[in-house]
């Protein structure tokens, strides 16, 4: 029997999903994360899970691993002493950033400090132009002396080589790497022309610095993990989840740790897309809400929308623009500072606002009884009766309803002259509204019409809020997948090996010869396929897709155009017009067309993940009743055990359906049914949005 194991390290828990390929059964496990050395929880949990099922690790042929380690290293600034070599005259790019404020009203806004301080950045004599022409040849001897200073006086452990226009001509960066390797063989080196060969120097340099900053730590971590797994008898293949919804070999992940930054959320979105494909619903909103943040992604045509820019380690709350830019492939994610731990307060307007400040896990919400006194979303959901004080995390933790009522009563209801129930409902509704607003704007900016699509809801708090958000958005259907609490760990097992390459080379479409066009893509395809064929995948089995960033001459921003197979250069204008109209309405200009960044994605076939079906059963029977608040007041509400629901059973709201990590809240007049795959599916008929 062959098994595959998904392991996802989150902030609080490390989740495990063990998939039996023979019968499609899935065993899940949760282990507290060990922040000092996350590989310990991984190894302990793996050993425990297998022992619990009387299995030997040798039976596991594949492990796919997702981790927030790289993001955390950047947020906590716990990485290598990193130096930088750059073109003379440009070492201040990191301090100057975009020369723009992300908030015009907040004079006290803060920008993140560069990861590499100015004194550890050295300049070298060299200069290339945008078309790859060399104006000033590389002064290797001078560069060597500068590097010696960085290593021997400043003690740098990792080096980012970031030359202007390095994407157009990587020659100087490569020569510097050879020099560095000869001089300091143990020094880790990241090249901007490899990490992110696309233009915009601040973004590329920063991305390369993040890669260099996290590389030694991630290399050591993977080393400990590989050795530990081998010790436990693992002889199969290890893969690492990337931010873009694919997996990487450990070798590729070591070279490009910057690509694994958002691996957990990416796996969740990947799993949503997987459910959508199984259910024949290619247009989806993936909605994941946990303890501190909510994450959303749009699934279009069965795949999550992918972009080549993101922002991490925001320095000012969750304010967009206050973080460090990362220019590498990632699922286009909405991130909102809204989760179970989000703190509610009376704002300057005399209304309630919730988040982005979070009580975290410690002290946590007031109802945790660990000394937290601030009212949180979890406190509100407890007061509303959505959560069972005796069945939180399947009964592993008892919640203190009186403490939640005190917090909400004293800090929200009292000052605003509301009943505690109304105040709690307000907190709950404001989060629904915040999430709905984020989805609306995100979808609207991308020309995505969600009104006919479905929502997939998961995470600890997602199922509590999904119906409310869906009502506000006018979405007709919400899917609550089985095993929602380990959605990311399962998603790891649904992810194929993928590698993307994006390289900037500007050209006017009118000047582009077909042979040149084909040759440029052929080179990129070879580059994208190499890590996959090196992992033993036959080139014939790979799917290769191509995109081009294009724009009108004179415009500053590109749009991404998908190229169908065998697209020739002659077809580009029509393809561009079609995409432009989809994004910007019908507005078309009479200006020459320019291509800028060329992108290729190679992916292996997605792994099979046909999970076993739950038993057919008859009527759903409630395990009890409790008072829960719905608009109008508290009503006695039946409570169901999700694990006791068989295929086809249907439940009319109001109802609460509990599983270990979460509760599905179904309102009055709503109906939910268990489908053939064990998912709960709620249909919202005539949903055109409702109010508070």
């Amino acid at each position, binding site marked *: 029997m062959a098994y595959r194991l998904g392991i996802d390290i989150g902030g609080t828990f490390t989740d495990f999903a063990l998939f039996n390929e023979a019968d499609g059964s899935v065993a899940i496990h949760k282990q507290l994360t060990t922040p000092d050395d996350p590989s310990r929880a991984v190894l302990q949990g793996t050993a425990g899970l297998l022992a619990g099922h009387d299995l030997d690790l040798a039976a596991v042929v594949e492990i796919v691993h997702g981790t927030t380690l790289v993001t955390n290293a950047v947020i906590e600034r716990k990485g290598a002493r990193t130096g930088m070599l750059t073109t003379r*005259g440009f070492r*201040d790019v990191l301090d100057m950033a975009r*020369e723009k404020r992300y908030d*015009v009203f907040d004079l006290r806004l803060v920008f993140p400090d560069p990861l590499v301080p100015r004194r550890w950045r050295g300049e070298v004599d060299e200069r290339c132009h945008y078309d790859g022409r060399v104006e000033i040849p590389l002064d290797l001897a001078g560069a060597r002396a500068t590097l010696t200073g960085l290593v021997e006086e400043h003690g740098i452990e990792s080096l980012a080589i970031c030359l202007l226009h390095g994407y157009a001509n990587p020659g100087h960066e490569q020569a510097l790497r050879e020099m560095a390797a000869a001089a300091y063989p143990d020094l880790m080196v990241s090249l901007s022309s490899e990490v992110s060969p696309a233009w915009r120097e601040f973004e590329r340099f920063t991305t390369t610095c993040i890669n260099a900053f996290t590389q030694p730590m991630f290399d050591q971590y993977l080393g400990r993990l590989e050795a530990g797994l081998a010790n436990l008898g693992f002889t199969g293949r290890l893969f690492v989840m990337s931010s873009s919804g694919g997996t990487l070999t450990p070798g590729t992940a070591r070279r490009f740790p910057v690509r694994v930054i958002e691996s957990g959320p990416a796996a969740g979105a990947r799993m949503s897309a997987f459910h959508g494909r199984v259910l024949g619903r290619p247009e989806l909103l993936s909605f994941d809400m946990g303890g501190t943040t909510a994450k959303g992604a749009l699934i279009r045509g069965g795949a999550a929308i992918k972009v080549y820019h993101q922002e991490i380690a925001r320095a000012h709350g969750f304010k967009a623009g206050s973080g460090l830019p990362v220019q590498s492939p990632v699922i286009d994610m909405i991130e909102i500072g809204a989760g179970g731990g989000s703190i509610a307060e009376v704002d300057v307007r005399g209304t309630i606002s919730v988040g982005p400040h979070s009580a975290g896990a410690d002290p946590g919400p007031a109802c945790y009884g660990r000394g937290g006194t601030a009212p949180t979303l979890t406190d509100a959901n407890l007061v509303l009766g959505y959560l069972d004080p005796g069945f939180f995390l399947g009964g592993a933790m008892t919640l203190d309803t009186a403490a939640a009522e005190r917090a909400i009563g004293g800090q929200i209801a009292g000052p605003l002259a*509301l009943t505690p129930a109304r105040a709690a409902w307000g907190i709950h509704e404001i989060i629904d509204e915040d999430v709905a*607003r984020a989805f609306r*704007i995100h979808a609207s900016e991308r020309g995505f019409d969600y009104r006919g699509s479905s929502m997939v809801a998961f995470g600890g708090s997602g199922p509590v809020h999904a119906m409310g958000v869906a009502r506000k958005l006018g979405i007709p259907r919400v899917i609550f997948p089985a095993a929602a609490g380990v959605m990311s760990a399962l998603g790891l097992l649904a992810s194929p090996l993928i590698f993307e390459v994006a390289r900037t080379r500007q050209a006017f479409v009118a000047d582009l010869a077909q042979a040149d066009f084909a040759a440029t893509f052929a080179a990129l395809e070879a580059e994208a396929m190499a890590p996959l064929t090196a992992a033993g995948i036959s080139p014939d089995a790979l799917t290769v897709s191509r995109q081009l960033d294009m724009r009108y001459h004179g415009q500053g*921003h590109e749009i991404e155009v998908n190229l169908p197979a065998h697209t020739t250069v002659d077809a580009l204008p029509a393809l561009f017009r079609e995409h432009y109209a989809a994004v910007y309405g019908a507005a078309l200009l009479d200006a020459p067309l320019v291509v800028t960044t060329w992108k290729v994605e190679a992916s292996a076939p997605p792994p099979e993940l046909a999970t076993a079906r739950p038993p057919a059963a008859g009527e759903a029977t409630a395990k009890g009743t409790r008072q829960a608040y719905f608009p109008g007041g508290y009503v006695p509400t039946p409570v169901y055990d999700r694990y006791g629901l068989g295929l086809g059973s249907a439940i009319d709201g109001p109802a609460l359906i509990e599983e270990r990590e979460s509760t599905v809240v179904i309102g009055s007049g709503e109906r939910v049914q268990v489908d053939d795959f064990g998912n709960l599916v709620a249909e919202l008929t005539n949903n055109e949005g*409702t*109010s508070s």
Partner: protein
Amino acid sequence: MTAAATQQQSLDAVSVGIMWDRLVAISDEIVTTLVRTSFSTIVSESYDLTVALMDRDGQLMAQGTYSVPVFMGTAPATLQHMLDRFPAHSLRPGDVVITNDPWLGTGHTFDINVMRPVFQGGRLIAYVMSITHLPDIGGLGFGAAAREIYHEGLRLPVCKLFEAGQRNDFIVELMRNNVRAADQVIGDLLANVTATKAGEDMLGAFLAEYGLADFTALSGEIRGRSEAATRQRIARMADGSYLNEIQIEGVDGPLTLACRIDITGDAMTVDFAGTAPAVRRGINVPFCYTRAMVLYSMKCLTVPELPNNGGSVVPITVTAPTGCLLHAQPPSPTGARHMIGHFVSPLVFGALAGAVPDQIQADCGMLDLMTFQGRHRDGHDVSTIYFASGGFGALAGRDGAETTPGPSNMAVVPVEVWETLTSTTIEHKRLLPDSGGAGAARGGLGQEVVIRNDSNNLLTVFCMANRTEFPPLGIMGGSPGRLRQHRVNNETVDPKGHYELQPGDRITMIEAGGGGYGDSSGRSREAIQVDLEEGFITPEGAARDYGIDYGTFEPS
């Protein structure tokens, strides 16, 4: 929840909060529609736009979050001018009213104000207004060159672009005949129309969803709460009269801006008596723009987190003598009114140093806009603007950010993109050590950028630099930042001239540093040490500005 139940809860803190947030979200979604349907990069990239939602009494309920500062609070006044011409009772569904008159709209002819009355069940329930900076409006083009308003292109009175859904093609053709890049201009004009229609649909759906008959009560609640929040913050400021006067560079010599701010309890008045008279250049500021800059600056000091609406502006009265630079009258030209108007911010911040010392900001080095026109080495025409920022002014306990603009906010074009688009070469782009004003908190550093004409063609550069004679001032005892300077082939040149660069010629921009905050003796040794190690200040600077001798310290 049922409509009846909603009414029952009436407007408690929960429902007001949620509906308020939704109205702001609607204005933001109209902005996305506007951006998605517009033609020009001014809208889609620079976001030089705003969207405003007003109730049936013309009161501002919500405004797009991403509005540029200069559009603060202008829409209700513009709407009133429109209603003076077309009274509310005469408006019909499908009407769209427009104007670009600088005195009725937002201060120069480039901004088109597009208003749609919103009807539901035949009743007028609200107004949606969308404002964008058009790519062109005829005349001399964008800049300060005009001597009178007649040089500044088409000036449309309040008129109906659509009447009961029927387009007035005469207006469209009139514009088409009078502007450059007509397709883009008309495209943007109609994008505004589309955006207001989206707004009408969303507002109608909002009322249906919440079971409301109109916006009056909700609007009153939103504005009332905003006004109260603003008054609460103003009340914390010490009562008194606060004066300030600054010298700034005009086109033909220095100009004086003066203000007097009176704070009494929870209200304030701002007056600009003492300000120089208007000049015969396109840098005059109509009062609507002056007021918007005051409201923007006060919002920064009072409740920056509060969404924009008509309530927060009630406690702030703004006046200026008719005919002065900040209350210019026709036929004064106003095309580049931002050149003077942006100084309203440092002027009022400087005045309020005594009232709110912990909140005000030292002067910013401000933006430098330089227009480049020529031909790329690949043969294509080049016409584009380079933005280079000076340092941000320091605040209490917070150093000014390096190379960060204020009060305007346009991002720099990355070097790699700039060089690709223009085939010029940026030889270097360096921070200028010691350029930030010294203080307990240091002003942000300025920068030096050298651009070489490698296009193999003649390149013309149009400059409009400020801060070349009067530096960004420090505050609360902080020192001024370093002056801005332009050089051509290393010779200092008139910062407001235009220059023809031959192939191989260089233009150098030396950007001003931000002003410092507080006496430099209050700066910690650690902060000075870090600045020195990072090379943000030199050992000479440390000795001169902070009286600390680091001797032979050599920053690496």
